[in-house]
């Protein structure tokens, strides 16, 4: 009986998940260099999983922890103690899933020419300087994040 139920439920699983290909361009001020990477982001129920191309590490964000699995070694980061990392994932998740109340809590926003600009409030201004993004038909065209330490991240959803 249980097996029958499991088989019947299997087709429902993709409803909770969506995987996108992405490319990431990261400018690191300390090095004065830009690094480019590609990978896949899976939005699963209650978690986000990130896998880079040509890299065997898997990052899993579940809202409370960031779990990194590399070479069968697992490290767990408590995000309650790492507000800067937590903010980054919150922002990413809120933009992708249109969580307006989250964005309103931390940013003021204005939209022009289809591009949304987010200005952080004092709570997170010590981490993030500004955000720009564009979405069309549930696709993330681009997301630019300027950090307070002058680092910049540009993420695009690719096909």
């Amino acid at each position, binding site marked *: 009986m249980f097996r029958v139920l499991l088989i019947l439920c299997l087709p429902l699983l993709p409803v909770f998940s969506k995987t996108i290909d992405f490319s990431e361009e990261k400018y690191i001020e300390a090095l004065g260099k830009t690094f480019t990477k590609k990978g896949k982001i899976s939005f699963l129920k209650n978690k986000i999983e990130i896998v880079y191309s040509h890299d065997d590490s898997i990052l899993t964000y579940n809202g409370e922890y960031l779990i990194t699995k590399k070479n069968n070694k697992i490290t767990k980061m408590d995000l309650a103690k790492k507000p800067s990392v937590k903010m980054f994932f919150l922002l990413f998740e809120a933009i992708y899933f249109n969580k307006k109340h989250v964005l309103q809590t931390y940013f003021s926003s204005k939209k022009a020419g289809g591009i949304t600009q987010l200005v952080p409030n004092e709570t997170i201004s*010590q981490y993030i300087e500004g955000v720009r993004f564009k979405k069309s038909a549930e696709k993330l065209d681009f997301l630019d994040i300027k950090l307070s330490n002058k680092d910049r991240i540009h993420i695009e959803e690719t096909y």
Partner: protein
Amino acid sequence: MKKPIKYVNFALFAISLLLLVSLQSYTHLSTSLLSILPNGEVKELIKNFNQTQNSKVLLLAVKGFDDEALKKIIKLEKELNALHLVSQKSMKQNSEFQQHREDYKLYSQEIDIEKLGKIDVRNELQMLYTDMTSSFFPVLIDKNDPFKILSSPQVTPIVLKNGHTVLEKYGYLSYFLLQSNSLKEHQTLYRQIKTIVNNDKNIQLFSPLFYYVENSQAIKSDVNKIILIASMILLLLYLLLLRDAPLLLNTLTTLGTSAMIATILITQLYNEVSIFVFVFGISISTIAIDYMFHHYIHDFYVKEKYLNKEVLFGFLTTVSAFFILSFTSFLLIKQIALFAMVSLLVSYMIFAFIYPKIGFRKFSYKPYPITHHFNFLNPNKLFLLSSVLVLSSFAWIHFDFNLKNLDYDNQKLKKTEKFFTEHFNTNKYLSFAIKANSIDALIENAKVIKRSDVTAQVPLSSLVSKHSYEQNKNILQNMDTIRNALAYEAKQLGFKEGFFDDAYDPSKIFVPYTQELVNAYGIDVVKIKDTYYTYGRIDKSMYTKIVSYDFVESLSLKERFEMYMKDSMDSLLKLGVLALLVIVLLLYLITKDAMAYALLFLVFPLSMVGIYAYFIAVNILHLFMLFVILAIGIDYAIYLSKKSDALTKRAISYSLVSTFAGFGVLIFSQINALFSMGTVASIGIISIFILLIFVKGVADES
């Protein structure tokens, strides 16, 4: 001649009322337990602490983590933020303080010497490089301390869901700061908040300020209830037993006058007077009724006689007891004793000297239709038995000096407070104060606490003291090799030129702090007289250790009161014994042969209270009430030992009923302080009734 004197009593009342209103004496009355503590640095310190952000926080929690709960809390946040004296507390820290901490972190935090000795510059930089380039999320580098040799400050974990702070395993949570300062402002704000946040079982709302408002309301309504019951009993007494309207009106006026004059005097002497003094004082004022009864029943108001010796002796004995007690350093008792002396003196003067001039109709004595006499108890045997009971009671008497146990027991609010403290796990923390003669010494003391327990929350410890500055500067000046290696290896690995220029820089100048600057950083520092104080919190298990430092002060009202009690207990006991000795001496002088009988009025009520003490922990108000009951008992002992006739007994009975109206009704109070006084008063009154009815008198004429 007779006509104007009839209005003197009312004129005195009117003048007292006018003075009371014009001096606004009632505004000095306080429902805060703190008003019981003596004025001084400790009281100021606790008062200041109650004004800090810790005490003025408002916590709001909405059950559940779903969208509906989130929308509900966001709506409530908006409405609460719109209130004039409410502001939402966000996760952000004071930006100036943050900047200062960042600038001076190399001098304020401790350097891990062991770690410093093991640094492999190239390896450390390589790890940093890998982290930055391989991580999906941004990696923040500390330019001042890239090798993390500074002791990292404890980070309070912030749990977020959907970007909102949460109370784990419950729901969403918001913090607010309340800026109300006076009780009036607290009350207005409380009403506004309660209008926005209705009773909803899925919402938890708490602020320590709610105790001020709710307890003050509860105490006031309780006091009103007590005054109403007392007034009804007194009215019944007069209407049913005396049936003399002018006497009733005059007596109530006199009692009012005496209470008002005592209130005016006490509030002129002290800036803040506990409402307990006022209630207790009003109750004591009613003792004076027995002066009126004895004068009235023995026809002093008809024949214009002036000096009823028994009443004068009774008055002097009672006032002597209060006079001796007024020398205590215990503020509450001192104020009550002063209040009692003034109010009794005013009442006695009016009852003894003005009433005979006013003149009232003769008391019509109607004997009760009882033929059987119940006075079968032998006073000597009862005295012996009572003395044995009093001595035995020392075996079981135990004391409770926790001042909080005297306050109104606000169960509902305590439950909500417990809900939050258990969720935050803050119930294991205790607050304390640190003191020093200068800001720099205060910072150094804060650092000593932090070194004793790294989990201690002492915001001031993150500033730079002269000592920590010089110590760290010395170490930093010896780090040239590491700084050079850092510059070289960073260049080799590809870091930008000059990126680590600020790392381990020994050239920062020490700038001493001022109180204004520290306060601007959002850290509470107060100056009381010539001493600076700041506050901190520490795990309960560490508390005993840190309060042993001579620069740490306890902020616990319970502890403070206990210390204060210990200090004043000796003098209070000495004064109590002295008061008893004076009473015994006066009794001997007044009653002579009938002294054993008179002493029974001391020992028997004492023994009954001793039995009661077997079931309870005796508090300070039980003790004080006991002294009062003894003082009243002695009045009656004097009257009866002089003249134990039916009229005297009738006068005493009426006085006892009125004393019950004054003190005994406190037994109906919800406030433990008043209830404690009411129980002892009721036991005392019943004991005296027993003596009056069942004990053979010395000169029994009835």
